[in-house]
């Protein structure tokens, strides 16, 4: 049966004397400085990102500043159901719903937000509004954070501002389809307006 003698960690005289170890440490740090300062590029280990000039890309699921997604005609997909403002734990979303005009295909079926405002200073970027939205109208996939400003008013993002922010890929729509009244599969406006197709 083979036996192994495990060497207990102890200090040799050289280590105890401290001076040789100091020299070793100095050599180590000098070598590191040389590599990081003058050495070949691929060996440099400098981790610093020169922030305002170089920006590290955020991860894919980073919750950035909100955007309101568009319909095909460029208007907001929001139906002013107030789910997001209800879900919001910071109470930073303010929505004033309004009815479509009589004769509009959407009239009586859904509403639209006359005012849609998010206080980005109050927002905690939890993403509950995105989860709560039944029509995929609000998203946080912009990949940028709120731009800095000296004035509080600049952080009150109104509907136009939110509509003007594109997603990370530059698009204003989402991949989820939206069925307009009259489309096959559309559930109809209500029982009175329901049409057979």
């Amino acid at each position: 049966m083979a036996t192994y003698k495990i060497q207990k960690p102890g200090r040799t005289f050289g280590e105890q004397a401290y001076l040789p170890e100091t020299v070793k440490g100095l050599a180590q740090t000098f070598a590191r400085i040389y590599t990081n300062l003058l050495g070949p590029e691929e060996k440099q280990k400098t981790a610093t990102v020169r922030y305002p000039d170089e920006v590290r890309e955020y991860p894919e699921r980073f919750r950035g500043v909100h955007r309101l997604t568009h319909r095909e005609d460029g208007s907001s997909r929001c139906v002013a159901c107030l789910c997001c403002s209800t879900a919001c734990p910071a109470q930073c979303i303010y929505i004033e719903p309004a009815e479509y005009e009589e004769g509009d295909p959407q009239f009586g079926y859904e509403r639209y937000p006359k005012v849609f405002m998010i206080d980005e200073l109050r927002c905690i970027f939890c993403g509950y509004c995105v989860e709560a939205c039944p029509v995929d109208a609000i998203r946080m996939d912009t990949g940028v954070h709120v731009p800095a400003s000296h004035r509080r008013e600049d952080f009150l993002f109104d509907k136009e501002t939110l509509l003007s922010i594109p997603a990370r890929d530059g698009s204003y729509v989402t991949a989820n389809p939206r069925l307009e009244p009259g489309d096959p599969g559309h559930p109809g406006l209500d029982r009175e307006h329901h049409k057979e197709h």
Partner: protein
Amino acid sequence: MDLWFILGAVLKMAFILGVALLFYAPVFVLFERRQSAFMQDRLGPYMGGIKMPAALMERLPTLQYGGFASAIGAALTALLAAVMIALGDASEPALFFLPFSWGTLFLLAAIGAPVQYVGAKVLPHLFYRDRLNIFGGLHALFDALKAFTKEDIIPPHADKFLYAIAPILAMIPAFSLGAVVPFGPDVHFDWLFDQLPEGGAISGPVAHLQVASLNIGILYIFALGGAGVISAAIAGYSSDNKFALLGGIRAASQMVSYEVTLGLSLVGCFMLFGTLRLEEMVAWQMDHAFLGILPGWGIFYQPLAFVLFFTASMAEYKRIPFDVPEGESEIVAGYFLEYSSGKWLMWMISEFLEIAVSSMVIATIFLGGWDVPGLTQSGWRAFGYRFDLSGTNWAFLSEIANSHLFVTLVSIVAFLAKAFVLGVLSLQVRWTLPRFRYDQIMQLCWKILLPLSLLNVLVTGVAILLFS
């Protein structure tokens, strides 16, 4: 005491303080910041800078080609010379303003190559994007300016007089230590552009490049170095802060302990040099080549004393790894915890000045001061051969190189460079070693450094008895 003496003393003081304040202190601050960053894989503070005009920044890449141009010029000259040699015309002193020889080519290449290297490697580092930042040095400067313009807070229950006077007391030793450090050989004004004789009396007025030539020179350094304890203790006492008080007490006990080792480790050097004057120590080191080959610097004769003194001076000036007085993981910032704005800046400046001046002292005692191997007072000389080209086309080169002025300048630069290397080394130690515990510091002082320095005295005494 005539007018010239006073004027000379003022000029010498201005030089020493100027070098320490305007060169060593900022460069050491810069080194400290970026050195530590680079060894920790960071870039450090570097982005602050002065915005440069766009026109300059656009031309910057082309400036680097100036170096290329001179390298190409050297190559073209070589080609031209080859053609001239091939045509049998080589003896004519025809090339530009310089007499032609292979030496010319070598000289041009030797000038061109470093210029090109500097242009390509150093110039880009002076700038970051559109601003001049000088390797990040301007960032450090702006930090100092910012600190200076901050609010100067005095704690409500502090002893206002002692609190205000402590940083000033810290600056005094740092400033006045430079007084006895000789930073160059004697300057003989009548001989500036001539070669000095090998030995003997030299006529004409002379200036010693040392503010005060004291016969107790090194004791003066010990005395003033020991006075540093007063400022730290006063600062800790007057701040009305328990952490500061702890720091002040720690500083006092540590500095008093290491003062002993600091003095004893140099006793071997006194015995060897036979003097306490620093300029005579340098003269001794220039005269006594070690083993016939190496320069006779104190570090070769007294290696143990060098290590002991280097360590003890580090501890004496409370530098890492001996920085328990200000250990920020335990007592925040120690004795200067409550200081802010300009007063805090004075602590910082005195710390870096102490690094500079103690490096100068170590360079004087252990690295031969202004001594350059192969350089005597009458010019370059190595292994019995003089650098002498008189009688050839290149006589002017040796005339310049051996002239008193050039020799003096080279000596001064050599001294400053030695002190600089020592300062950088001590900063490197600062970022390499972790802080010692308080009992370890005391143990190191009383149980290791002190017996070793006594042993050094004994061995040196025996050696002097045996070999002289």
